[in-house]
């Protein structure tokens, strides 16, 4: 099933399409008395979101770092292979996943294991344990859960498989802030990058280039973006040898900054204008840049990377 899902996503299938078709293939293939409880989810770090379908896999616990509480989510469908799906009755569940949040996937072999007295371990004990130990490394948290299960069952033989997956957004590598759409916010932007570089120990030699790219992208939004009071969100994440920066623009029109036309920097001064120079410099200064637009939410996401290892300038701009 994992292989089928991976091929589906490799071929560009959406979450819905992959879930439905893998289910239908399994239903055709497996004996009538077989089914699979399964969680199929996609984590989008840049959009701070996880989207999932769950075929009979529940409860799905989600630890929110902001509230320091676990919330419980249900399945979106029946177990895979139980029957054919023509149309999904429920849309994929979307959960905002911010740094420090933990997605807790625990199989029913854990929830339903019993004490010698016949009491089930249940989801509540998992919730209490995750909330108490959320700051520990995930491998350690999983170990604590299995220790708790062992004590609860008095080390009795498990009646079902026990699978535990914890997915945590690293709270230490990223820092984010929001900026009002005004040239006056550029000073705040500069102060933000200075603080973030120091806090995350990002090589300071990259800061002038990152500041310039950020300013060009930000002022582009201010000058040409859809008029709105919704602030622009900027997130810096330390990566090996450098930084990844994501600029999230809500309530945005679709404008792909990576497809801006080339600038003839060799033209005589009489015909030179500053127009387009900003995005030209952006392309020169970054190691890579990606743009993504979601029509549904009208969100534009621009992500660029800058590292000390990559050369600057000529090698970075295939459009010239």
């Amino acid at each position, binding site marked *: 099933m994992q292989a089928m899902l991976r091929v589906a996503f490799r071929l560009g299938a959406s979450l819905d399409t992959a879930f439905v078709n893998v289910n239908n293939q399994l239903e055709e293939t497996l004996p009538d008395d077989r089914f699979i409880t399964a969680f199929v989810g996609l984590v989008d770090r840049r959009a701070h979101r996880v989207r999932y379908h769950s075929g009979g896999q529940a409860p799905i616990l989600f630890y929110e770092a902001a509230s320091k509480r676990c919330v419980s989510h249900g399945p979106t469908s029946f177990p895979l292979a139980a029957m054919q799906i023509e149309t999904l009755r429920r849309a994929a569940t979307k959960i905002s996943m911010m740094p420090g949040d933990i997605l807790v996937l625990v199989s029913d072999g854990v929830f339903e294991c019993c004490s010698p007295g016949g009491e089930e371990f249940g989801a509540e004990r998992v919730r209490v344990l995750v909330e108490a130990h959320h700051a520990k490394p995930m491998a350690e948290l999983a170990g604590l859960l299995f220790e708790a299960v062992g004590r609860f069952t008095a080390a009795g033989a498990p009646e079902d498989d026990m699978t535990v997956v914890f997915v945590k957004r690293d709270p230490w590598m990223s820092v984010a802030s929001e900026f009002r759409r005004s040239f006056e916010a550029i000073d705040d932007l500069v102060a933000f990058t200075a603080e973030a570089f120091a806090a995350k120990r990002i090589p300071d030699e990259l800061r002038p280039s990152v500041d310039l790219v950020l*300013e*060009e992208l930000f*002022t582009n939004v201010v000058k040409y973006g859809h008029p709105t009071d919704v602030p622009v969100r900027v997130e810096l994440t330390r990566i090996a040898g450098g930084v990844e920066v994501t600029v999230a623009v809500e309530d945005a029109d679709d404008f792909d900054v990576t497809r801006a036309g080339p*600038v003839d*920097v060799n033209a005589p001064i009489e015909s030179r204008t*500053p127009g387009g120079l900003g995005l*030209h*410099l952006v392309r020169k200064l970054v190691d890579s840049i990606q743009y993504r637009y979601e029509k549904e939410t009208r969100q534009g996401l621009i992500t660029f990377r800058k590292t000390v290892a990559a050369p600057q300038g000529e090698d970075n701009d295939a459009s010239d």
Partner: protein
Amino acid sequence: MLAIDYGADGSVIVSGRLDAAQSPKAQAFLDAVQGQVSLDCGGLEYISSAGLGVLLKTQKRLMQSAGGLRLKRVNPHLQDILRYAGFDQIFVIEPAE
């Protein structure tokens, strides 16, 4: 922030950050200069495309009357930016020592 003023030797001294927020201030000052002008960039930490636009507009105006801007004491980062923009073909640029 940006500071721009005349130095004792008659050159224009610019320092700080020449970004989109500060460009109007720089443009207002440079709109008043005439002839051959040395722009001392020794204290200029940063320039964006908005600042480059200020330099370009000033250079075009000065060249119409046989004048021009000479950029002095330009740090390596600014040199890169000027070169990426093709401004090394438009301005005389003297690197910082």
